[in-house]
């Protein structure tokens, strides 16, 4: 610690001894403004189907090629043959869906004219938590005609995976996302661009979504690295099939097959406390005991008995299962194998 401090002091002397950045004319220094102005020209306002029963008829998108391809989210707005894209230089493009990825819920549109400005997909990058970011989108549809998209600043709050959960609004996309600490994901913002403070593309703003882990609306973008392969396939004219849902096991195991009896399931989230272990059963041989609380099955967190039962449906009777259990104040790993 002492040595670090010394190094720092030395650095300080050097730094303070040097002429620090002169108080220059702002125009020569470059600014967020210049980044925004050039980046903003690559975005479009999209208009399509909708407008009834609470569905929006507009969203956002951005150019990804010189030929005028537009990347956006796949939504009901695109359920129409002649989609209109308007860039902020006032150009109006006729667009139609070239292809979609149903798993990422993205669409690539082709347009009738080349783009004047676009994001070069070979120059995207991956951002780190804590970086400042810009979000460009037509949130709430407030921009129209040759008006600019709206620009918001924020900080990359976290990188995480979208988690699915039964019984609540569930997103089709379940992969990595950037979480932003600004209010970026509002109606109309989906399909907008997330860039760093130098205007380099980081990701695409996703649809409005409630996070199931915390029960609040989240602001997020899908990283470009997750989208690149699908975009390439669509541009190459290949179709993308929907992923199979996680298959249940052919011969799923169950609590009774393992010899586990839980306490009566009387609450919505009754904890997975073991009431009895059948003598001679798999669970018995593995050393599971009554009053053990099951916390994890393999790497899946078990928040209730219902969650445990449903998780077991995905595990074959022949497979080994690793349980993390709590016994009094101790955590123990228990391996169930036939």
């Amino acid at each position: 610690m002492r040595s670090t401090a010394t190094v720092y002091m030395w650095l300080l002397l050097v730094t303070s001894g040097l002429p620090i950045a002169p108080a220059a004319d702002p125009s020569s220094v470059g600014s967020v403004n210049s980044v925004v102005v050039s980046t903003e020209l690559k975005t479009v306002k999209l208009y399509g189907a909708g407008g009834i029963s609470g569905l929006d008829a507009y969203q956002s998108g951005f150019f990804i090629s010189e030929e005028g391809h537009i990347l956006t989210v796949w939504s009901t707005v695109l359920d129409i043959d002649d989609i209109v894209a308007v860039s902020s230089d006032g150009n109006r493009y006729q667009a139609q869906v070239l292809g979609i990825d149903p798993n990422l819920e993205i669409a690539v549109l082709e347009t009738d004219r080349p783009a004047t400005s676009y994001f070069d997909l070979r120059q995207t990058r991956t951002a780190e938590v804590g970086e400042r970011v810009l979000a460009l989108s037509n949130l709430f549809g407030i921009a129209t005609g040759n008006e600019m998209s709206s620009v918001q600043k924020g900080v990359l709050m976290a990188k995480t995976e979208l988690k699915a959960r039964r019984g609540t609004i569930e997103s089709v996309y379940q992969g990595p996302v950037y979480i932003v600490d600004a209010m970026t994901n509002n109606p109309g913002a989906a399909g907008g661009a997330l860039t760093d403070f130098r205007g380099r593309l980081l990701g695409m703003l996703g649809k409005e979504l409630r996070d199931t882990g915390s029960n609040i609306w989240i602001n997020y973008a899908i990283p470009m690295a997750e989208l690149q392969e699908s975009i390439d396939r669509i541009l190459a004219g290949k179709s993308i099939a929907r992923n199979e849902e996680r298959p249940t096991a052919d011969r799923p195991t169950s609590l009774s097959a393992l010899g586990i009896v839980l306490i009566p399931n009387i609450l919505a989230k009754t904890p997975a406390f073991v009431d009895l272990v059948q003598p001679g059963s798999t669970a018995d041989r593995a050393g599971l005991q009554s009053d053990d609380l099951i916390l994890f099955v393999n790497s899946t967190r078990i928040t209730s008995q219902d969650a445990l039962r449903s998780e077991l449906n995905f595990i074959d009777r022949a497979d080994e299962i690793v349980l993390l259990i709590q016994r009094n104040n101790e955590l123990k790993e228990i391996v169930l194998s036939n």
Partner: protein
Amino acid sequence: MNSKKSYFLIRCGGTRCGLLGGLLCLLFVGSAGAQSNQPPTEAAGPPLDLSAREERGFQEAARRAAACVVQIETFGGLDRVDEKRVADGPTTGTIVGAEGWIISSLFSLRQQPASILVTLPGGSRVPARIVARDFNRELALLKVETDEELPVAQPADEANAAGWVGQWVVALGKTYSAESASQSIGIVSAVGRAYDRAVQTDAKISPLNYGGPLVDLQGRTLGILAAISPGSFVEGDGSQLYDSGIGFAIPLTDILERLPRLQRGEDLLSGQLGVVAEQQNELAGPVRLAGAMPGSPAARAGVRPGDIVVEAAGRPVRLLADLRHALGPRDAGDKFEFRVLRDGQRIDMSGELIAEIPTYQRRYLGLHLGASEQAGWKILTVDADSPAQQSGLQAGQHILACNDQPLNDLQQLRRQIAVAELDIPLRLQVQSDDTSAEQIEVLAKTWPNELAGSLPPADPRVEDGQQVTIVDINVGDFSNQAYALIPPLADERELGLLLVFPEPGELARDKTQQQWSSFASKFGWIVAVINSANPRRWSAEEIELAGRVVGRMEKGYSLDPAKIVFAGLGVGGRIALVAASTRPEKIRGVATLGTDLRRFQSRRPNTPLKSVDFLLVGPEDQLREPAAQLIDQGYATIVVPDTGLQPQKWETVPQSKIEFWLEGLARF
């Protein structure tokens, strides 16, 4: 700095930079950051230079503090709290003691999980238990057993808290990942918020980082992020602010100060003093007291009606808000010192704050009093078996003083009785016609929950058959029809006001007149009726009308504040209840006539001087539970079982009982 271990040893958030200060410090952090694993930016060229350096400053601060932030996972527990679904995703905690003490947000643990696991900085998962809860600050203290050497959050200097405002801060959470902390950036918006309990920030604070630290650019912890709500003390309320640009953190030094109590397993609750201010408006001042809640620390400290609070916890008190600020950060069990002004004398008082003031019930002596040509206030009637009768008070006597204070007006006596202890008698100075004044001690009881007492004599100036006048009440932009029966001699006496919400549909003037004319004339009551705008239903907006009508009557007549009552027939009873609950400082009674109250919920406990009496008339099975609930909360509640009442028809209500209750409200 290479190995994790050496990093942990320097604790979370060093002060190396603290000495350097200012811009130099910022540049300096930037240089240091450039050595480590930074995002692949080009050399910081002239464009966007400041922004990039700031960004590195944020990341460096976060990196320093992140090690003392832990992820918390819960298992099992309630599905819903207060009818809202509880999310069961991971949450965040902050290490505050190297022996395994972790502070988290109560919001994240409100589902009372069966098990809690904490992922320590070294990556291992260990079980944790909740040791204590701080309900005043929405925090919980957890304990884990581990041999791992734990980094501890370093507090920023709270003595300098005023200087925090405007500073950059980073809010950290580990909800999304046990390894890397989420960061949200903002500035300190204010300090001393939520009655001096919290720091306010515009960084994004939500369930994603509750329990995590709010750190300055040196990585020192200003406070722990919590779902505190700015005005009320309702659990979980503050979480609704997550998209508002308002977030709160509880200063870490405040938490550390209370850590020993929490470590002993003591739950902390907000401390109650129990003074009753004459005016309830926060911005009212000076803070003149109507008295102290019976059984409260203020009562034990010797607070008397008329005392003016001028200082609390060493700070001047000018407005009621000042007193609330002084009390906000104090917990039950804390000693609280305050100073009052009484007859020009400053008196220092102190007491130990308590968690809950005993439920207040209206006090009862059993007297009707009236004005007199002689000095003092004339006793008109004495209730049978009442405390007054037991003490030997008799009709015709005059009360001159109470507890040695001369009575200039009756409200003064009301205030003294309202806060009377049940085991300390009031000393009344009483004058009988033929003797000299004597002291009589009366021990107050709680207000009876049954019809008791006697009617006072009717106004002798009103002659038999003298009629009421019917006037229209202008209710402005509402389309409702409203009218009032005005008794004779309206300008010469204080009047009661009975405001009636009928069943939807029209309640005709002649019917009301027939029913109420005699009582209104004899005892001096205005009976006002608001008919619903829609003949089939009442709407929520129409509740506002109650305030307008009361306002108009107050302007036009002199009203007796002890006799302002809302009543409702059938469905109108619900409107009367809601309307009364919006202005409890004015309303002294609520009567529901034939209203089904089986789903009625009352949440506000009774308070002195704002005490409300209830009269519930109708089938007993519809009223038993709500009545029990009201009584439990300290309200005097009388149930009159009646299965024959038809809400559309005045003539079916038990008129004499209602009149008896109405006149009884003004008793002492």
